[in-house]
């Protein structure tokens, strides 16, 4: 498996920590998912110190932490958030979100490239949440990114891979760059498909947290990414237009 900024991860599954009904459910979901990476954010700390409790729990998950800049709409905001995250979470890893549109939460690729450059130059390991545009991908690599995280569909939509063709093109264009499908996964078959296309990881949150049974869905996603990764290695058959008997025809008895 490709390395992410020099780190090899134990599973291609990256899981979000939001929207769970309880910390206990989150914890069990993570254990079952086998996720190698947990995404987190920064929010205002109240007197209650809720953030500290959350942090204690996440740290105990024993997975890599990937802070995000969720909800940032400007380069300045995203960069400052990244700087603060680096200090709090004590990691150079940052999932760079630069939201360009309120309803679709889609990336603003212009500000994204700008912020990615600033952060990469400042020593961050940038995980850019981007579109499936390969020219944008090229700019992000030039800016210093060593990972690309194209969306499959809008965040939280669960619609699956809206443009497989574009993802295949990204894969073909950047054979050596880790690709992680980030956002849009709704069911395991979406995750399996992403891996079959040759992606190196899948990042999801809502599909697990909002499933009727998050813990079971977490297990399902663990199997799904494994299945897809193995299939990619195994070199699948080519689909055919016509049927072809699997059972041999020769030696068939005459009984009619």
């Amino acid at each position, binding site marked *: 498996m490709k390395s992410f900024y020099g780190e090899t991860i134990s599973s291609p599954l990256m899981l979000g920590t*939001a929207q769970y009904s309880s910390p206990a459910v989150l914890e069990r979901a993570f254990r079952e998912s086998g996720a190698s990476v947990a995404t987190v954010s920064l929010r205002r700390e109240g007197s209650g110190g809720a953030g500290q409790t959350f942090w204690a729990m996440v740290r105990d998950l024993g997975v890599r932490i990937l802070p995000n800049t969720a909800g940032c709409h400007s380069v300045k905001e995203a960069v400052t958030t990244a*700087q603060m995250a680096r200090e*709090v*979470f004590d990691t150079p890893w940052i999932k760079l979100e630069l939201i360009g549109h309120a309803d679709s939460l889609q990336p603003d690729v212009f500000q994204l490239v700008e912020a990615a450059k600033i952060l990469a130059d400042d020593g961050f390991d940038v995980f850019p949440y981007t579109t499936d545009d390969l020219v944008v991908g090229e700019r992000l690599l030039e800016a210093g990114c060593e990972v690309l995280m194209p969306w499959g569909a809008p965040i939280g939509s669960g619609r699956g891979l809206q443009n497989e063709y574009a993802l295949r093109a990204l894969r073909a264009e950047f054979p050596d760059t880790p690709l992680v499908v980030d956002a849009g996964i709704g069911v395991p078959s979406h995750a399996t498909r992403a891996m079959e296309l040759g992606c190196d990881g899948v990042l999801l949150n809502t599909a697990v947290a909002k499933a009727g049974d998050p813990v079971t869905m977490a297990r399902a996603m663990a199997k799904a990414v494994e299945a897809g990764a193995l299939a990619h290695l195994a070199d699948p058959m080519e689909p055919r237009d016509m049927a072809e008997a699997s059972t041999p025809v020769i030696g068939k008895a005459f009984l009619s």
Partner: protein
Amino acid sequence: MKITLNGEPIEVVAMTLSGLLEEQGQSGRVATAVNEVFVPANARSECRLAPGDRIEILAPMQGG
């Protein structure tokens, strides 16, 4: 003096950012910004507050 902390106007005694954290009982793992500029932990004691300053104290939270 009057400052804005995490979006809320408050009256504080502390003169420095580190003092403010103490005053607020924020001993945990937090990051700070003053007037939309990040202030690293090791610079907090040097960071003098002025009336009207906008302070952000952020902590780990759920994220996707």
